[in-house]
């Protein structure tokens, strides 16, 4: 029994060491160079208050230069997963860098986002349990899509 506790204690110490070592590097690598607000989708396209509210609440953590990191984003191993997933998310859609798109691409990205929400693929199912605020109701999705289509 005593040996088990020693092994368990050793494992915990090792994990704590990992966390300490990786905490700073993980945070540093997650730091984003922020884009000016004028470059954001909501400013460039003049999004209405509900659209703004929806994307800030449900999308911005992964799809903008302004994430609100949860505590586990600083704890290994989840930190590296959050980092990798956010990078992938930003590569596909970044609401903060709308100035990098033509009107044609802007429309494609908005309709993509609408389709992902409508099909209940976004936010991702495993993101929702720890981020209940990111859940979207039907009215919010409908409103976002109607607004996205009005941009055509």
């Amino acid at each position, binding site marked *: *029994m005593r040996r*088990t*506790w020693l092994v*368990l204690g050793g494992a915990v110490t090792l994990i704590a060491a990992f966390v300490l070592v990786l905490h700073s590097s993980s945070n540093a690598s997650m730091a984003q*160079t*922020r*884009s000016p607000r004028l470059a954001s989708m909501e400013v460039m396209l003049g999004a209405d208050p509900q659209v703004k509210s929806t994307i800030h609440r449900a999308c911005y*953590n*992964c799809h903008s*230069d302004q994430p609100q990191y*949860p505590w*586990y*984003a600083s*704890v290994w*191993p*989840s930190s590296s*997963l*959050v980092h*990798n*997933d*956010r*990078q*992938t*998310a*930003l*590569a*596909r*859609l970044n609401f903060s*860098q709308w100035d*990098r*798109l*033509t009107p*044609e*691409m802007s429309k*494609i990205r908005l*309709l*993509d986002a609408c*389709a*992902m929400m409508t*099909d209940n*693929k*976004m936010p*991702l199912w*495993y*993101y929702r*349990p*720890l981020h209940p605020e990111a859940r979207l109701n039907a009215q919010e999705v409908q409103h976002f899509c109607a607004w996205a289509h009005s941009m055509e």
Partner: protein
Amino acid sequence: MTRILATCFGLGILLLLIAGCGSFDSDPSTDISPAALRSRFSPLEVPTIQTSQQPRINLGRELFYDRRLSTGENTSCNSCHLLNAYGVDGHSYSTGHDGKLGGRNAPTVYNASLNLAQFWDGRAKDLVEQAKGPILNPVEMGMPSSDEVVTRIKSIPSYASAFRQAFPDSSDAITFDHFAEAVATFEQGLLTPSRWDRYLDGDTSALNEQEKQGLKLFLKTGCASCHAGRGVGGNSYQKLGYPKSWPNQHDLGRYQVTSLDRDRMVFKVPTLRNIEKTGPYFHDGQVASLNEAIDLMAQYQCSEKLRSAEIDQIATFLKTLTGPVPERYIANVDSAAKDDTVAMPRNKSANGKGAAR
């Protein structure tokens, strides 16, 4: 007790593992019906040329091929953007009028009018602005100034009437701005619709089964996140090497234009139209094969390691984006000629260094 602790620990780790932002679903739709695809892609059509534009197009074509408009009278636009070779010269870097190499791979001029901006770093907002660049670039055509360009053009008698016809409302027709406008007007017609466009228009037989499988994989891998729209690219800037860092960090791309940190390693997403014909690939032209380029893009932009057979599949699809070169349009027939036959560029065999390499 140990079992309970171990279970709690395991559950905790599991929760942390799944609590991240998660991967974007790169497969928004595997529906490859033309109707479904048109939410993301648009067919390319070649507009009918208006009669009033014809003199300007003819002039632009003539200027495009004219090697006398370089310091050494040995380099034209066509030297690096060979119109009968899909608008590229096939080299990693192009050689300028005095034998020096340019700093980036020469992108194709075909379908360039679909781009959101010109050059790899987007430093020219349109084709007119772009046309003013290489002619004055010391390592390209090397003309010392815009005034010198005008003087050179004025020294060639045949241009006087061509400029007058192209710009009939101008008292001073031969100007540097008009030179650029004429070249840009000609380049706007360098369009190459392909079987892909027929497919988007509803002809589902335009792509065979292998090509359709490649298309599905192209979508599933996430390539269409950036390579979409009418140009299948060319309509956004993206960071090269994202999420995974690109190996060559020497050329910082758009950062050299804006000096903004957020633009480090950001480049214009190139069009994929005619991609099988426009290698070597990327801004540094360091990748010779299309398959290797697909492999790198999947790894560095989409976080996907594709199998060799999958790369082949995507390449098979990409080849459907190759359209025929508009031979009649690019034929450098003397504007005085009324010959309807297709003529090849008059300086094809003396293409400066472009053909010599």
